[in-house]
């Protein structure tokens, strides 16, 4: 078997797997119908101390200017903090020893339809809600440990205290 044949054979074998994997990597948002996976949903604007992002099973060191994706979990160290601006102008700022998961984000920049679900499981978070909340408040929600927040275009702080989980 030549090297070329082996390559072609490998491609032929891999192709069905790639095709079946495609729907999982090309999700579209139910609300806006726009692709959400791997798309940039926002950027890190401010950062202090140690901050990392859990993405696809990896912990990436966070940097100012870094693009965020749906499903990212931000973790800040004991003297860390991070500020992000999402594509709909939402401003989220997490304080020390925080964990913030952005489980769902979609935004259509023409219609301003979209959705945002975020969960703070420890630490503190300052929120300035953005354009999605302005258009349709029920399309966004913030979860803390035992409560869920419905947001009507506003600014607020969630504080889960400093004791470890």
């Amino acid at each position, binding site marked *: 078997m030549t090297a070329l044949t082996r390559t072609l054979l490998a491609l032929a074998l891999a192709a069905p797997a790639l095709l079946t994997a495609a729907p999982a990597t090309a999700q579209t948002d139910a609300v806006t119908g726009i692709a959400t996976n791997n798309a940039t949903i926002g950027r890190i604007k401010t*950062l202090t101390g140690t901050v990392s992002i859990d993405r696809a099973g990896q912990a990436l060191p966070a940097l100012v200017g870094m693009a965020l994706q749906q499903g990212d979990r931000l973790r800040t160290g004991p003297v860390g903090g991070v500020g992000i601006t999402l594509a709909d102008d939402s*401003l989220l*700022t997490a304080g020390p020893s925080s964990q913030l998961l952005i489980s769902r984000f979609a935004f259509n920049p023409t219609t301003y339809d979209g959705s945002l679900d975020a969960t703070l499981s420890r630490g503190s978070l300052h929120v300035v809600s953005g354009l999605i909340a302005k258009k349709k408040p029920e399309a966004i929600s913030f979860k803390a440990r035992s409560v869920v927040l419905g947001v009507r275009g506003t600014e607020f702080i969630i504080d889960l205290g400093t004791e470890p989980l």
Partner: protein
Amino acid sequence: MRQRFLAVLAALLTGCAQVPTERIVLLPGADGHSSGAVLVQRKGGAEGADLLLSTAYAQADVAGDGRVLPSTSDAATVQRDYAALMALQPARPRSFVVNFSSNSNSLTPDTVPVLASASTALGALKAGELIVIGHTDRVGTVEANDRLSLQRAEQVRGLLMAAGVPATAIQVSGRGEREPLVPTADEVAEARNRRVEIKLR
């Protein structure tokens, strides 16, 4: 039953209910006024447990036993507890606007200094981005205006790039006729609505 057990366990773990395990504080908006409201709901939706925060510094404390208790904070307390957090907040978006001459697709002469201002402000902001958003008046269909607004935004993007702004720092979108500066009836020509907003964030 299970929920009740967990609630009792949580109460035991956190000791008495005096130290709240979760706190939500509604803040005034950037203009100093209350900007909106937050509805605090227990997960699992226990009836009657919702608390609406609708005035500046209204606060919800979740007690160790899971109850959501209303209280009030104030500017000095928020400053004391959260000054470091608020200092890390990203810059609020700000906008520059360029207009199109009446009955034409050409930009007005004051466009050049506006583009220069936007470019300079971008350079002064860490990890800054320019979101270039086209707008139309209400003459024509929604679909046609979506296309036209995007064309206008792309025209301005070209000018920004010519002024030295890197392409990676610019995103374009078209809002069509959805966000008029001056509200009009459909099919009314209004030059002030034919504009491109350059949002810096």
